[in-house]
């Protein structure tokens, strides 16, 4: 692993700094997109459980669109296609954003909305898994629709879907690598660059593989802690967990 401390071709940094830089972009993209995904995903998921009207239909269209098109194609849509379809002035402004923001912002929106569709499905499943009595009881207590979701249904639904959310949270770090196709130099792109500069394939890809492993482990640990912290005694048996 001596490669890490050798000087890069530009002469001012070490490969270690490249990896750190790549890691920084991977983490920012993943955490930023996760925030968007949680907010949008919850809204869309709730929309899908509303009784009748236009919202469930809108939610379904959203989910089907974002789930049935590969992430990479969506990436290209936000990066290449959208600026062309917008009015010329706005499109040009988007294209002229300074790197790396020119690739980071589309990647952030893309990954956020993509993951939102998957979270929406889980939120819907979580809400639907609750007994109908919960909804009725909330109504009887005088909660409006917003209060019912915010204080009664969602807190329980999220506890049910935490294990699948954990999975999704770990996936988002891996999915950030797709952003390399639109020019963001995140971790995987860094490995490729180091390999192209040094031809030391094993070390370059080995280090980055280990970094991904550590990220996965930490992400899992974090979610596991959250899971235990929010666990309700009455709920453990109710959800059938052992």
């Amino acid at each position, binding site marked *: 692993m001596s490669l890490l401390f050798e000087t890069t071709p530009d002469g001012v940094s070490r490969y270690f700094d490249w990896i750190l830089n790549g890691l920084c972009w991977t983490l920012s993209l993943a955490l930023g997109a996760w925030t968007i995904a949680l907010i949008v995903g919850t809204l869309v998921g709730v929309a899908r459980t509303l009784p009748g009207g236009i919202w469930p239909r809108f939610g379904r269209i959203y989910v089907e669109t974002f789930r049935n*098109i*590969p992430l*990479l194609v969506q990436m290209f849509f936000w990066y*290449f*296609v959208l600026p062309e379809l917008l009015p010329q002035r706005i499109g040009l402004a988007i294209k002229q954003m300074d790197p790396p923001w020119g690739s980071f912002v589309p990647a952030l929106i893309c990954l956020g909305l993509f993951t939102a569709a998957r979270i929406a499905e889980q939120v819907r499943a979580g809400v639907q898994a609750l007994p109908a009595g919960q909804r009725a009881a909330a109504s009887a207590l005088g909660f409006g629709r917003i209060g019912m979701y915010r204080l009664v249904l969602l807190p329980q639904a999220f506890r049910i879907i935490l294990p699948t959310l954990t999975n999704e949270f770990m996936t988002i770090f891996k999915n950030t690598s797709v952003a390399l196709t639109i020019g963001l130099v995140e971790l*995987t792109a860094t490995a490729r660059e180091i390999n192209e500069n040094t031809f030391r394939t094993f070390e370059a890809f080995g280090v980055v593989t280990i970094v991904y*492993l550590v990220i*996965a482990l930490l992400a899992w640990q974090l979610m596991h802690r959250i899971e235990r912290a929010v666990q309700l005694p009455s709920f453990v048996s109710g959800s059938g967990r052992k």
Partner: protein
Amino acid sequence: MMVDLSAIVSAAPFLLTGLLFTLQITLVGVAGGIVFGSLLAVARLSQNRLLSTLATAYVNLMRSIPLILVIFWVFFLVPWAIGWLTNGGRPVAVGASLTIYVTFVLFEAAYYAEIVRAGFRSISTGQYAACDALGLSKLQAYIYVLFPQALLSVLPILLTQTIVLFQDTSLVYVISATDLLGAATKIAQRDGRLVEMYLIVGVIYFLFCYAASQFVKRLQGRLAYGVR
């Protein structure tokens, strides 16, 4: 900007070649992935400590790193590995498609393994006991009794994973292969038709995946009904 439909029509034959390659990768990935994945699942459940640890490590490793990284690994390692086996250590030039097939079998097997393992765990222990009582060997028990039941119980999930695999094939873009997306990209860059090409590719992927996921949904309903 106007969308020019004629650009799509003239690109259709090339896009079709790309689509065929996409389907080929999917097919190889599914077949190889399920076979290798099932072996991994059996290994994980085996009494042999070493075997189960190795299989677990493999599955967890593959599931922790991005597919693009695996594509790069295989892209650089396969020529080297084949050279080491046959050519006395000198790397051998290998076509992109072989690299891709190997990648998808190795990568998807880890995901299929988890699904098949869930299938095995859904089988009641009585089935294992019954196999013993009938005097079936381990191999016979797996082939004739356990595996068919395990597969059937997780069939919808296996198919959903296959839709994911179909979408994942677009990532071979990173080694410039000519799958559906690769073909579209090549035309888009040659003719300056980014909007038309990426939109039509999006529509094609959507139609395939939407149809497949509706099918899975129906199947799921039917299987659930059959069991009750």
